[in-house]
């Protein structure tokens, strides 16, 4: 139903020449990937709202438009977290937004890609649970505690409301979206998704309180004890858009033999490979201020470390310091900006740290 209506929407927009391409998910044998289509005949191959998120769609748009504007008017169908990533990556000059229309929908959450492969929990189940006002037990941890599970004004262009309405509604999120809808002859509809947001935020508050990694060295070492140092979390992170990661630079992280032995002397034995924790902390200090909270780091972890508890909670603390919500706030990201009169609590020595 919700997907069918979206496909009709796409077809109309294509017939009217309002768009020349669409980026949205398409099913695979055991999962869904994003697909780019350029013809009306391929629309039915899309499942615009999918029960899993294998990649972050904004990351796909980054690949497409990093080196230049989308050559054709493209409709991108994104989850709220992907739309926020989109907005954040525009700030980092990674996506050229000019020729892209973003449609964002009320998100029922997504199933972990590995869970989906095992037992196919379909979208309808998730939507039914959503309509009954309950966050599904089947969705990923990051989805259960999502801060913004619905479209937000000025994040994306067109909203697609599903929660609390039998007949999905379209509504504008931006001026561009408003023009788009009126060109399609669609009257904006309304729905109330306040409850959907509220229950997520209640979950989130509890999560922030209970799942925090504490205890300094022991806490982080224990948390990461099974980490393979595969850097897959970084590879899947849409905000880690670097071509080459600082922590994979061999001129820096390849040492002379002596160094290993010196360290082993000095630290009373070292675990190998080295610099495992430094990698995670480094990623946090480099890009934590822009963590969107899509949770793909956690989904990517082959040994099921609940990494989003590390990234999400530390990022939450960081973002509070700078009063910045990535993907929502219009300000430049904290790493690109500064104020003259701020952060005085970080100057000098404030005793009483942990």
């Amino acid at each position, binding site marked *: 139903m919700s997907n069918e209506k979206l496909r009709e929407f796409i077809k109309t927009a294509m017939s009217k020449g309002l768009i020349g391409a669409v980026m949205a998910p398409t099913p695979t044998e055991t999962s869904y990937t994003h697909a780019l289509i350029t013809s009306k005949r391929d629309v039915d191959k899309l499942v615009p709202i999918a029960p899993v998120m294998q990649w972050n769609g904004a990351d796909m748009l980054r690949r497409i438009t*990093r*080196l*230049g504007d989308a050559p054709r008017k493209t409709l991108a169908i994104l989850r709220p977290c992907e739309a926020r990533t989109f907005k954040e990556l525009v700030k*980092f*000059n*990674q996506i050229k937004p000019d020729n892209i229309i973003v449609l964002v929908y009320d998100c029922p959450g997504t199933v972990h890609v590995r869970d989906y492969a095992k037992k196919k929990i379909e979208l309808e189940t998730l939507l039914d649970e959503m309509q009954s006002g309950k966050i599904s037990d089947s969705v990923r941890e990051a989805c259960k505690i999502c801060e913004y599970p619905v479209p937000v004004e000025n994040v994306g262009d067109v909203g697609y409301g599903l929660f609390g309405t039998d007949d999905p509604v379209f509504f504008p999120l931006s001026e561009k979206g408003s023009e788009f809808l009126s060109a399609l002859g669609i009257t904006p509809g309304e729905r109330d998704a306040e409850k959907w947001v509220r229950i997520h935020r209640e979950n989130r508050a509890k999560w922030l309180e209970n799942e925090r990694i504490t205890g300094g060295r022991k806490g982080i070492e224990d948390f990461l004890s099974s980490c393979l140092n595969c850097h897959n979390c970084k590879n899947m992170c849409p905000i*880690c*858009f*670097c*071509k*080459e*990661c*600082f922590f994979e*630079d061999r*001129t*820096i992280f390849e040492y002379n033999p002596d*160094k290993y032995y010196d360290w082993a002397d000095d630290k009373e034995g070292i675990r190998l490979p080295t610099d495992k924790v430094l990698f995670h902390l480094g990623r946090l200090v*480099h*890009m934590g201020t822009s963590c969107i909270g899509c949770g793909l780091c956690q989904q990517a972890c082959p040994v099921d470390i609940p990494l989003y508890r590390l990234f999400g909670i530390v990022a939450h603390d960081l973002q509070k310091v700078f009063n910045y919500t990535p993907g929502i706030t219009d300000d*430049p*990201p904290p*790493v*690109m*900006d500064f104020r*003259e009169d701020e952060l005085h609590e970080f100057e000098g020595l404030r005793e009483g740290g942990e």
Partner: protein
Amino acid sequence: MGKVLIFGTNVASLRAAANFARYGHKVVLLNRGNYISEIRSQLQIQQPRNLCNGCLKLFLKKMYRITGNITVYHNSEILSVEGAPGNFKVKFRTTPPVVDEWKCLGCDICVEKCGATVKRLPLSPGIYTIPNPENCVDVCPAKAINIPEERIVEESAEAVILAPEFEEADVSEFGYGLKNVLKSSEFELLFWGVGEDIKHLTRPSDGKIPRTIGFFAPAGFKSFLGSYEEVARILWQAIKVKELSKDVDVHVYLREVRLYGKGQLRLLDIARDKGVNLHIIDNFTISQSGDNVVVNGDELELFVIAAGQKPSEWWSKLADAAGIEIENGFALTRPYSLETTRDGVFAMGEFVRPLSNPESIYDGTAIVREAERYISPPVVEEDTPHEYIKDDFNPKVALFVCECALEGLSLNVKADHTVYIPYLCLEPKRIISEIKKSGANRVVFAACSPMHFETKLEKIADRAGIPPTCIHYVQLKEHGARVGADSRKISALVRAAIEKVKRDYYVDIPRKDPVKAALVIGNSVAALVIAAELSRHIKVYLLADDFTPPEDVTGILPASLRMSRAEFLKWYESLKNDALSRVTLLNGEIESIEGKIGSFRTKIGDTVIEHGVLILADDGEIEKGDTIGGGVNTHHARLGAILAARHGNVPKYELMRSYSLLDLSPPSATRGEGDTITVKVSQLTLKIAEMLSLELDEDGFVKGVEEDPLLHVENTNIKMRPFDQYTGGIFISGFSHSPMPVESQIIHGEAVAQNALFLMREFDSPAGKWLSVTNPRRCAGCGICVEACFTKARYIDEEDKIAKVEPALCEGCGACANVCPSGAAFIISYRADQMFEIVKEVVK
């Protein structure tokens, strides 16, 4: 090569000395004190809190060392100036300082052997006093000790420039002398050297932290001459006190809000926001009440007065010796010039009128233009390029340790070649031969403060073929024995340097060979001055249409203010004809401006011109009103005050009614609000600013680096450095810059022209070996570094979609390297792998 004699050591004269030397002239600098900056200048009196002795002289010292064109005489007094322009004979009395501060190594042997005492100052070995210097001359390894015998010296000079220092006015009539009343300079010194902490804010009588403080600037009372920084400074101080403690009740008393600088009125808002109580007063009373004072009825525990300037009495003696005239105690200059009533003798800075520090800087730069007609052409020696040793893969490190810096500690380090020398800086030949003998291709110097000797030692290694990027400097002395450090620490520091330098490689630091042409846009007086000056040396394109004579907002100096409209028009015609006789006049719309400093390409209509610098100096429209002041540009008030003084028809003023020498007879305006006299920025200015992405202030004028409203108040060291490269090859003047009276447009225009001329020679990246570069393979083009770059040296290349660097703009701060998450942006001499090596070694 020309030769000038400069008397005085204030902001204007220090800069002038550096500028003449840099441009290729010989300079004789006469200093009144025992060392430079002993006699305090306006800047030192107003802003002593963060101002360091060394910073003040940094630029001068650099030019002294690099050009060798500067000779300094200390304790000097001019006796006579004979002769004529081009051939003056200046006779002066001088006594050499016991210790020459620029030769002194700070080794302290004289302290040990001759009982010398030292006043320690930042960025200098310190100022030494030696009881019997005769017995100590041979003790000094650097031959820095002189016997202080007074002598009479005669120096020849083609032009003479007088710029003696500021003198603080007597403020006893405002209560100075009462208990717990300080001058603003004394107040600032409470924090000198010890840091900004509320615990240092203590009052003299009982050492307690005052709960109520009042700040007062007497400007506006009894023709009190303001220097136009003190109001800004006390507002700044009041704000700082509030930042240190919200509990202190802070009051500011002003009759006129005299601020110099664009947007400086923001200071008033900031002060109010921080909870400072502002009192605009017309009467002032002060009395003692126990340990406190009562000011206009408010009981205050501490009271701070910002004294303005007064013309010094001895200036008339100086004027007699130099054969120039004085009016109102200040040197009298000719209309629209810094030249005094005697040909070839110039006066500037604090000697001519009360002025702001930026104006001093303009004076000290414009003077090179003004003196030009009397002095021989400049000569610049080109560095002879030579072959560097380039071996990226087989590092061989020579370590030079200065025993003077080691002070008895021992080093436990291994280098390919280690040499201990008693005084490293005194043995250039030995260093060169050791480098050559050892076959080293990397050098580590372990010596003392890099501020004194790094450049010198690098130059020596350079002569031995070691490229600058393969040299590292360790500061041994000040981080070692002198602070009680042990051998383990200094060994770790030196090992870190050795490991770092092993990973250095040869980098050819690019030089810029600019297009020797300028594009001047606009038809202001400043534009004509700039075009006239530049066209004597380089190709000048002037884009301007009609040249209607401007309003006669002539200026504040007596000769300008007295100028009649007819004289003014005559002067204007001759300036215009002079400029137009040499420039290529262009007409048409600007289609595009491409390129960067040194190589701009501008399309005007169908014509494309190439030029190395761009100058925007358009006219604007003066909107006349009945009130002095307006906008956030405090310059408007001066403009209004001059109009009022010339036409006598403005009955009201908002916050300030007079300015500088106009205070001697301020316009008879009363406080009130009305239609203010403002300058409307031209459409052309706005258009060009948009094309070049230049920032505008609240009134629409283009922001200039040197006059950023708050920085200008706070940042002292910015005033000590050259601005030319800093501007990115784009200079703003005339009404595009601020509402300047004609006189200011001329001086500012001349300063801009001189700065532009500095850029018309081949020049190095100001970053030197700290140049920032991009690893294209890694750069994702996110632009974080572009935002971080304060000189706009970094930009996203439209074609390659990665961040690139314009070396001519890079200052080497490294902010880009810090923000780049992937390490694609880095400083060539401080790569992350090197930093990691350093960190690894220093913790040992």
